[in-house]
Structures are given as structure tokens and as C-alpha cells.
């Protein structure tokens, strides 16, 4: 097996046994990145990576390394990295060299991980196809004419294309799970508040949550162990101890009750995707789980709810980008208003502007009650649906995305693009943890199975996913030419 097909767990063994060094490993991935045409990276941090790898090797030699010491990764370009360009996929921040580290970046540094570069993404994490990046489309490693999903499209393509053993991602409405599904990797969006949002460029603050994107559930557990934790710099960080997420991976899932929401298997779901998802559920039954139908009646309203709540928060968050303190400033502004108007109009892309305007409208006097307040009430109903369902079942399963990856450039209308988020949005609105794990192929493209758990059930989700990956080999499959 080529080195780049190895999981983090395997690489960690190779590093500690001296089979290869972190410098060799890092160089191997850098060579692959430089030879790749997936456009998965916005910035490749060669020098920085080699320094970190050398430092990691020194620690390993002294026997003071941790389990992740010397493991390379791709970092979504939404996390601030001190001294390294942090663009959020936008022209607005093309010149932004972050003067500080996000808490996630800091934690990954503390664990001696090696950052290969900053992964491409939809501008400010707004998008489901990675076609909204100022730095161009990312290609799906399984078929380069297809989208990789979004907004963490570069992260997903990097892991699936074996350009990095793992990547970081963020998920506001599905941005970890959907690209993981479309690229055939494992992705985890933790409970809201589990991973610090400090230094993670904000899109919709009550929904944004960071998590790992990996080949396997075991790897996701290893990375979450590092990413998770209370952070006083994030006012919505949960004051809750971090478990060892690897501790219960091997627990039996006999007696597990799986809930299948009937609303997740209705009109609009591709037949082949549905049959792959059901085959995965059958696999769980064979492992001793029982299946029960549940209902999430308000999940049908997740799309309108999300596409009011998120734009409202984004219009507020992105007001800080005004061409004054950092980021893009237009040429020769004639007065202050011209500076604001042109810097923002020239700096933001189309989708970002659309969402800012929707938010500005929905929050404006006279419309606030009809849109924002109404959406927040519906959000409550959506979250109550889950509360009821989790009284009866341990985990909810269903598709991640209604279809496999579609052709680059094929969806032009924004509303049609939004409809593709139907199965992922409700977990963000409720704040629940969710995963996508590889569950087969349709039209020769990967299909993901979505797991949604109760609050703080990351260990359980990872256990369920790991047990599935002991029985199946979908997660080990890689695009042929790799």
C-alpha cells in the first residue's frame, strides 16, 4: 500500500517505529499536492511544513512525541494562521496575512501536526459546490468534471485525492458532511460549541462548527481529541470536559436503535442513493441494530429557516469587512462612502452579496417579525422534533445529499443549489452532531450515509461509524489512478 493511502493511525505507527520520518512523509504529500490539478489548496505552505516536520522528527527522536506528532494535514482556509494568508476563499481577504492563530490552529500546532497548506473553499463558507471560491473551482477526485461539494470542498478533495491524511472543515449547513459524502470520506460535525470558533472566520455564528475530515472514524476520533475543548476566547464555547473519543470505538453496537426519518426518504432523493443508504442500514441490522421509523415533520422547513437565519447572521458578521482595518480596499476612494461601497462590491463575490442582501432585508424594520423571528421560531420546532425522536432512538440515519456529485457548472440558480442541502441543515439548526461515512457508490460516485446523534454524542457516533467500517470497506476505496 502506498504511503498516502495509510490512515492517521497507521502513519502514527510508521512514524514512531521509524519506518519513515515526518520530513519524508511531509515531502511526499507536498510532491503530490504540487503535481495535483484538483485545485484543492489556496496556499501551499512548503517551508512552514518542512520546519514543523523537522521539529516533529526531533520530538519523535527524543521520545517525547504524541500520537499525532508529525502527521501532515490540510487546513481549511477559514482558520486564521499566524503569518500565513487566510483568505476564506475571498478576494476580500486575498491580502490578509493573519496576525494571530485560531484556537483550532493553535491546538493543532500544540499537538505537533504539520500544516501542508490552506484548503480551498466556497467564499466565506457560502456554497454547496465549491464553485464560489475566488480561487476557482475544486475538482472531485473521483471525476474531475464533478463538484467536490462545499463549502469544505478543498478539504474533502485533499483527503479523497490522498493529498493529505486528513483535513479540517467547518459545517454551518452541511459543509463538512456534504463534501465528505460526495468525495467518499468520513466527516464529523460536532455538537455546536464543542470546538472553539475563535479565529475561525464567522459566517453564521449560531450555526458554525468545526470538525475533522478523514479517511476513517478512528482517525476522526484522534483528530477531534485535539480540536475539541472549552475556550474562554469563544463566548459560545461549551464548558464541558473533552472525552477520549477513541475510548469507545470498539464497543459493540448490538441493541442500537436506529431512527429513519420518513421525511429523509421522500421526493427528490435519487433512487440509487436511496438504495445505497438502505443497504448500509441493512448492514447495521445484521450487526444487531434495530430500525424504527421516526418523523421530523418540520424538517421540510429547514431550507427556508436556514436561508433566513444564516444570511441574517452573515450580513451582520460580514459588515466588519469595510476596507478600513484589513482586507481589500478599492483604488482611490473619493470619500468614505465610496470606500465602503466599492471595497465591499469589488471584494465580495456574487453569492456572498446575495446572502448579505437577504440578511439585510430580513432584519430591516417592518420585515424582522415576518422573516427572522419567524425563522427562529421554526428553528425551535425543528429542534423539538429531534428531541422527540431521540426519546425513541439512539441515532438517526439517512442520506447526506439527495444526489451524488453533480457536474461543475450545471446548477446556476441559487435556489436549486440550496435545495441540495435539505438533509444536512436541520442538524445545524438544532446544534446536533452529525457525520457522513462512505456507504457505497451510485453512478460510479461516492454516496455517504448520514448519522445524526443527540447533543454531545460524538463518542457514540464515532463508535457506530467505526463498527460499520470494521464490516465494510467503502472507506478504504480511493479513485483508481491514485
Amino acid at each position, binding site marked *: 500500500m502506498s504511503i498516502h493511502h495509510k490512515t492517521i493511525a497507521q502513519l502514527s505507527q510508521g512514524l514512531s517505529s521509524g519506518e519513515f520520518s515526518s520530513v519524508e512523509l511531509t515531502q511526499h504529500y507536498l510532491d503530490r499536492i504540487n503535481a495535483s490539478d484538483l485545485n484543492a489548496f489556496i496556499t501551499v505552505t512548503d517551508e512552514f511544513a518542512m520546519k514543523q516536520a523537522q521539529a516533529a522528527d526531533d520530538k519523535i527522536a527524543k521520545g517525547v512525541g504524541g500520537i499525532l506528532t508529525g502527521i501532515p494535514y490540510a487546513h481549511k482556509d477559514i482558520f486564521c494562521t499566524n503569518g500565513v494568508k487566510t483568505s476564506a476563499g475571498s478576494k476580500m481577504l486575498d491580502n490578509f496575512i493573519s496576525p494571530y492563530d485560531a484556537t483550532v490552529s493553535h491546538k493543532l500546532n500544540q499537538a505537533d501536526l504539520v500544516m501542508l497548506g490552506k484548503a480551498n473553499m466556497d467564499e466565506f463558507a457560502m456554497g454547496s459546490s465549491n464553485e464560489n471560491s475566488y480561487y476557482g473551482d475544486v475538482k472531485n477526485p473521483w471525476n474531475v468534471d464533478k463538484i467536490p461539494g462545499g463549502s469544505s470542498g478543498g478539504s474533502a478533495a485533499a483527503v479523497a485525492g490522498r493529498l493529505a491524511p486528513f483535513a479540517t472543515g467547518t459545517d454551518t449547513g452541511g459543509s463538512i458532511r456534504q463534501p465528505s459524502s460526495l468525495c467518499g470520506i468520513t466527516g464529523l460535525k460536532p455538537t455546536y460549541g464543542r470546538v472553539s470558533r475563535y479565529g475561525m472566520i464567522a459566517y453564521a455564528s*449560531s450555526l458554525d462548527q468545526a470538525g475533522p475530515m478523514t479517511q476513517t472514524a478512528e482517525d476522526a476520533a484522534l483528530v477531534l481529541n485535539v480540536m475539541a475543548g472549552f475556550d474562554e476566547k469563544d463566548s459560545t464555547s461549551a464548558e464541558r470536559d473533552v472525552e477520549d473519543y477513541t475510548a469507545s470505538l470498539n464497543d459493540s453496537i448490538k441493541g442500537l436503535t436506529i431512527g429513519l426519518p420518513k421525511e429523509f426518504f421522500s421526493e427528490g432523493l435519487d433512487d440509487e442513493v436511496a438504495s445505497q443508504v438502505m443497504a448500509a442500514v441493512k448492514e447495521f441490522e445484521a450487526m444487531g441494530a434495530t430500525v424504527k421509523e421516526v418523523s421530523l415533520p418540520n424538517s421540510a422547513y429547514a431550507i427556508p429557516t436556514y436561508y433566513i437565519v444564516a444570511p441574517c447572521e452573515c450580513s451582520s458578521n460580514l459588515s466588519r469587512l469595510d476596507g*478600513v482595518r484589513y482586507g481589500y480596499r478599492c483604488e482611490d476612494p473619493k470619500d*468614505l462612502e465610496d*470606500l465602503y461601497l466599492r471595497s465591499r462590491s469589488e471584494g465580495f463575490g456574487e453569492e456572498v452579496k446575495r446572502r448579505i442582501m437577504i440578511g439585510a432585508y430580513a432584519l430591516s424594520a417592518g420585515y424582522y417579525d415576518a422573516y427572522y423571528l419567524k425563522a*427562529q421560531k421554526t428553528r425551535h420546532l425543528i429542534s423539538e422534533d429531534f428531541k422527540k425522536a431521540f426519546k425513541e432512538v439512539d441515532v438517526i440515519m439517512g442520506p447526506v445529499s439527495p444526489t451524488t456529485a453533480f457536474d461543475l457548472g450545471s446548477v446556476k*440558480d*441559487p435556489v436549486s443549489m440550496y435545495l441540495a442541502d435539505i438533509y444536512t441543515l436541520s442538524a445545524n439548526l438544532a446544534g446536533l452532531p452529525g457525520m457522513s461515512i462512505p456507504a457505497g457508490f451510485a453512478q460510479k460516485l461516492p454516496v455517504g450515509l448520514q448519522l445524526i446523534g443527540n447533543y454531545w454524542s460524538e463518542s457514540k457516533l464515532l463508535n457506530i461509524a467505526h463498527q460499520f467500517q470494521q464490516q465494510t470497506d467503502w472507506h478504504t476505496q480511493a479513485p483508481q489512478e491514485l
Partner: protein
Amino acid sequence: MSLSEEQVGQIAYLARLSLSNEALKSNTKDLNSILSLAEQLAQIDTDNITPMAHPLHMTQRLREDKVGEEDQSESFQAIAPKIGKKHYLVPTVIE
């Protein structure tokens, strides 16, 4: 209810965005189709439902009123578009 081009122009201005005539047309169409999606919310009975602003039922944490931040103005201003005498510079506002 649907937005006119004039209204979209006003919304853009509220958000300090300026749109070309062409962009105004396409945005009017797109914003109207997004808002008609949002109209679905009107079908839901939300009487007596409290709005959910945040997924976790938590209260805002308080901290001691103590200076914890170091002065990093130099490194923050190193990336500013235009500064002078430790201030961020913009075109003259008051003559």
C-alpha cells in the same frame, strides 16, 4: 410579495453594496425567488413558540473586569490598507 429593482437597490445600499444595472436585474430575480422560498414559513403555526436564537441553552459567561489582552496594535496595523500615526486612515470625513 415581490421586491422591485428599486427596493433591491435600497437593500444593497443598506448593506453598503453597489450593484451595476445588470447585477440589479439578476439580483432582483434571485432575491425574489429566495424570498418566495422563505414565504413557506408563513404556513407554520408558531403561536406561543419561543424563538430559538442559539442551539445551546446557555447564558452569557461573565469574566472578571481585568485587562487580559496585550497591545498588538503594531501587528494588527501592519496589514491595514492605510495607517498614519497609529490611526487607520480613510478619506476625509470632516473638513
